[in-house]
């Protein structure tokens, strides 16, 4: 007999999407800010530190895009649940 697959409830799915959006939209800038302030402690050469900071900026910009996508997914999923479930 096959095991019953572990299916998440719609509420949990929505909660996880929301947490992921918060992380992308709001938490990533917090981590980036902390890392930028403390990067000098890494002992890495200045050129490498600057490279890391530039990459962090890119990632931060990407995260904002991801946040928009997640918001859209959450809205569509809510609409779907209201209509069909």
């Amino acid at each position, binding site marked *: 007999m096959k095991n019953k697959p*572990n299916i998440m409830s719609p509420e949990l799915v929505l*909660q*996880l999407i*929301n*947490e992921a959006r*918060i*992380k992308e939209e*709001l*938490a990533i*800038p*917090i*981590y980036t*800010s*902390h890392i930028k*302030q*403390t990067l000098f*402690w*890494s*002992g890495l050469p200045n050129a490498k530190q600057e490279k890391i900071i530039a990459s962090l900026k890119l990632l931060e910009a990407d995260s904002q895009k991801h946040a928009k996508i997640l918001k859209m997914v959450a809205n569509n999923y809510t609409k779907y649940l209201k209509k069909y479930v």
Partner: protein
Amino acid sequence: MKKRTRIYLILFSLAALGLFVYFGVRLYVFFSNGHGFLNVTISFFLLLAETHSILHSLGFIIGLIRLRNTSDEHNRHAKLDRNNLPSVSILIPARNEPLDILEITFISVVSLDYVNKKIVFLDGSDEKYLADNKNLALKYGIDYFHPNEKPKSKAEIVNKYLPSILSKYITIFDADQNPLPEFLMETVGLAEYSNKIGFIQTPQLYSNLNASPIARGAALQQSIFYENVCEAKGKSGAMFCCGTNFLMQTVALKKVGGFDEDSVTEDFATSVKIHSLGYRSIYYNHVRVFGMAPETLPAYLKQQFRWSAGSVGVLRRLVIDSWNGKLHLRISQVWEYFLSATYYFVGWSFLILMLCPILYLLFDVPTYFASPYLYLGTFIPYYVLMMITFYSTMKRRHYKMKDVFNGIIMGSLSYPVLIKSTTAAILGKRVTFEITDKGKSGKLSFLSLWPWTIMIALNILAITNGLLHFSENPYAIIVNIVWCTYHALLLSRVFKLNRTPIIEKNNVLNYT
């Protein structure tokens, strides 16, 4: 054994040898030069002060030798099944914290990569803050708890909520601590390895370094503590809980009756009880949480006051409980707790070490200062070897010497506060730190700076008197003038640090 490890071990051994030789000479000098009540009394207190620094230097060297042990015995992870994670209650106790600080913490806690978590905001704030705080918690899907009676301490509010916690683990973040997403997966992985692990402590890293010289100095001091000291404590299973950024077994906390509400450092006092039950603790030396350092001199001194009063208060109870046979700690744990609890007597030690050259230049006591050859011949090698040992270990961790030195200076400047707090703690009195803050500027008023000002004046007076009598005993006088000059310069730093922080635009933590 690697060449570098061998070099370090030789250095540590030499430093330990220098330390023992110096201490032996100091004992000899004390017992062979005792005459006159004032002379003997001053020499006795000086010996006590030096014994304190020698003991802590020895503790530091033993810790460094322990760090050479690369066994991963204390860092073994259990494999976690992401679909079946043990439950964790995340508690954020706070009192009258600014909303923007709280929001940043809420965001980072919600973003922890862990499905089976329950976040609870324990609000001990005044009435006027409650509505806004509650709304903020709800905005991020965080449970809100506010006790009927206003709690007096962090320990009290956590204890009031403790009976309703059913999860296997609890973790606590202070309102200004921002964890990284992997915090729980890593610490729970460590805790799941054995049910004898009572708690796992992770470091605090202050990221507002550029906010003020105080913030930078406090951050450096914290780093010295969390890098070398805590790692060594972790190796001997005696790392204590620092009140934030830790994961604890709920059952362990419940067994000891919750956090100790009698101590102002409830975390330290509770750790002793948990260790006494046979639980181990782990120090996970990976920065997984960022926090905020105090930015002004009053805020920094207030923090030092609380920590010192709490630690010495625990020492008092440790002695009483040991006497009554209530404590069941291993020798290594007793040693580590002894070091932690006695560290804050450094304020007394510093005062005595400052007073002695002044007394010699003004009144010719202690008399053995008159023949500095033996003292210099043993003190200089000990001091130089200890400094090389200390700086080499910090340099390996990429700290700049200037910053490490600034951290040490800030520690020394706390001496009046440490004297007050440790005295109160020994007498078993509960005192609060009240200091005149000049308006809302975050500065101490000029009058509040009297302990530093008087000591500077005494040093200048002693230097002047020494110069006037220079020909009487040039070698001894010059040595003591050097010490007085060093102390006066060090103390004068308090005026530079007692400034309102100016946060440059480029350095401000810019949260969106």
